[in-house]
């Protein structure tokens, strides 16, 4: 199939960017979306032009590095699918495709389709873990965990940290991302001990990084490649209110 692409080109963080038009010719339906871009880039290099810069690594939908907005939707048209797992059989001959970087206040563009998502790392660094040292741990079966709780924790822990939820949200909120980590750890007995402090520091960090608040648009859930549910945001809010009461007296 032949396609017309409109791709966001931007030299650097402080440079002005714009959409430029490219033709993608003889694209097979078996190709992944990124393989289609590889073909376009090979053509650009041969012509002596600069290829389009985009983030990608595992190309198996798990590392969370790929991050593009395709026709206005982060990760493109297929549900629960990262860009790297999106295949060209989802498009048809003659289609025009708009490809842009994830856009959010907290994600400055570095170049072309590459953005800086280190704000998400800093939200985790603020307290998105269990403060356990290496070594000296009792047997793994010493603390039992109800299967349902372990399953819910796993549902939340599947987040790949790609940032699509932020880009999809009209407020540029990282609530789904933060809620996923808060829920994952709060569901487990090992994580409960620090739950109140965790939800407070992570929420503070989220606000400080320039992420907006949640006003229940649910766009995040719609684009999440791992199907993380907005119910976790409700869990975050509940944890936050419980903690806020405790916080007044100091943890």
């Amino acid at each position, binding site marked *: 199939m032949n396609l017309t692409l409109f791709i966001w080109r931007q030299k650097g963080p402080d440079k002005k960017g714009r959409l430029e038009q490219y033709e993608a010719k003889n694209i097979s339906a078996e190709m992944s979306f990124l393989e289609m871009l590889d073909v376009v880039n090979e053509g650009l290099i041969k012509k002596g032009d600069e290829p389009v810069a985009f983030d990608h690594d595992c190309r198996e939908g798990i590392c969370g590095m790929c991050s593009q907005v395709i026709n206005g939707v982060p990760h493109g048209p297929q549900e629960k699918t990262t860009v790297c797992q999106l295949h060209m059989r989802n498009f048809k001959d003659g289609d025009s495709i708009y490809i842009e970087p994830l856009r959010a206040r907290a994600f400055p563009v570095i170049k072309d389709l590459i953005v800086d998502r*280190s704000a998400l790392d800093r939200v985790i660094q603020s307290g998105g873990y269990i403060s356990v040292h290496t070594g000296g741990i009792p047997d793994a079966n010493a603390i039992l965990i109800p299967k349902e709780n372990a399953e819910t924790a796993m549902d939340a822990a599947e987040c790949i940290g790609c940032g699509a939820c932020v880009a999809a949200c009209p407020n540029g909120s990282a609530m789904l991302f933060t809620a996923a980590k808060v829920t994952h750890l709060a569901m487990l007995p090992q994580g409960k001990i620090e739950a109140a402090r965790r939800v407070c520091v992570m929420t503070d960090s989220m606000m400080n990084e320039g992420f907006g608040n949640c006003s229940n648009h649910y766009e995040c859930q719609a684009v999440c490649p791992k199907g993380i549910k907005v119910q976790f945001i409700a869990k975050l809010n509940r944890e936050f209110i419980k903690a806020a009461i405790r916080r007044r007296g100091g943890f």
Partner: protein
Amino acid sequence: MILNGKCPAGPLAEKWDRHRNEMKLVSPANKRKYNIIVVGTGLAGASAAATLGELGYNVEAFCYQDSPRRGHSIAAQGGINAAKNYPNDGDSIFRLFHDTIKGGDFRAREANIYRLAVLSNNIIDQCVAQGVPFARDYAGYLENRSFGGAQVSRTFYARGQTGQQLLLGAYGALSRQIKEGTVRLHPRTEMLDLVVIDGEAKGITVRDLVTGKFECYAADAVCLCTGGYANVFHLSTNAMGSNVTAAYRAYKKGAFFANPCFTQIHPTCIPVSGEHQSKLTLMSESLRNDGRVWAPKNKGDNRSPNDIPEAERDYFLERKYPAYGNLAPRDIASRAAKEICDEGRGAGSSGYGVYLDFADAIKHLGENKIRERYGNLFEMYEKITGENAYKQPMRIYPAPHYAMGGLWVDYNLQSNVPGLFVLGEANFSDHGANRLGASALMQGLADGYFILPYTISDYLAQTAFGKVNAGHPEFRRSMEDAESFTKKLLSVNGKKTVSEFHRELGRIMWDNVGMERNEGSLKKAMELIPGLRAEFWENVKVPGSGVELNQEMEKAGRVADFLEFGELMARDALHRNESCGGHFRTEYQMPDGEARRDDENFCHVAAWEFKGVDNGPELHKEPLVFENVELAVRNYK
């Protein structure tokens, strides 16, 4: 030179404990005076950096990705082994040790593997404490599943995303240390050189991938946790960025490269669909628990698999290896599939594939149970192939997956260059000639959480801290070398893209140094690779400049290293006149086609010393001594 692995004396079960008691310690007040560099933030790197930070050392951690959470360990699906014996099915530390050493076809150190088996249990405890949501039963206890090369169920798992969950656990521990200020993180930064001063590793030169700036970091020790080199085959299950550069450039600075020809070809990957293919996707080996592998009995049978009657199907793993059946180890399963396809009995339009069929499992367990176990894998398969594996069998074919070879290290994980430690897939130490499933995660975490933190203190306690700083002339030289290498890449301005060279190299490697090799094919590869390398330096086209984010240039540097490294692999495979594990030389096989080892002449680790790109490297050997297991023919029948 005869290398010494420095395994401690004494009975096997006591070696590690005894060694721990003998190693020197660094006092808490002194720890913060030592700087340690950790390159790579996968399981080995993140767990090492976090643990060293916790202990109080000053750690600089580097990764080429935008976040330390993206190391390729994250893609490991199936699970992690441990000798907990929770299912009460006869497992023990000795049995895990024995399975692993046998699985590796007796080409690894006894002492290392025994230590790994002991520590496997601590890893599970540690990960549960970090909040890794392993699968559990209704009573709340941890669940296990079976994996290739074992007759017990000892694999712990978190759906089909075990690597992801373990890495996020280590990433959490690392994040905590970053917040504490003990670890400074350098994402989007690539190591380009190891700096060796007076024979000791004292720092690295890196390139900031965003600004293109070169920088030097001095330290008291350097830890490479930079993964494997399967991308030398171009198409592999590795991430696009996975590369040999850090390890290879350390090799060029004097570190020995051990057993580079030991690479694992994983049996269950999605077959290639065309020329455009950029990588191959693995389907977890755990699928072989419930899936049955088969091919048509008749050549050229191109009916749809569901139309091929039972009597005309050849369940070749069950037929050839009745004791292990579909759970035969990876090297054996891969070669069996290749044989079938070479006979012309392959599945799919290309003929390069065999079926992995779940129809029987769905019949007696129900589709829901299968969905619960492997749902995400079936979804992934459908996204890539457009086929529904609940309704028709998957098509699978072997693909390069893991590097058992790597930089040579002793029992302390220290290379022959003092101060250079190598962890995880980047070292050669524990898997011999073939790695068993669910053992890579175990090794990466054992190295990072529980081994290196002890052994590095033994080295540091005997070294004065802050011996050199980045102002040393050796750093300046290293930086100039890295800069001029970059300039050279940009100045060629030829006609072929980096990917074209990579694809060609991959074809040479796959055809001649792949699942099967022989003297002729290896000599051919050793002729073809230098030719391709020469062409690369005359005709490669790398656009853009070095002082900006330039992904083509990053790729070009990595492919340039693969173009040298591929030759080393072929040379190592040529020297090893035997078949063992993933290294199958067609000249050395049993009458029934199984690998024929030569324990008299090749029961050693082959460690290569760099002597210049155009001169051959020098071979050093570390003899392998087996005192606790009997060197037997690996039999899975």
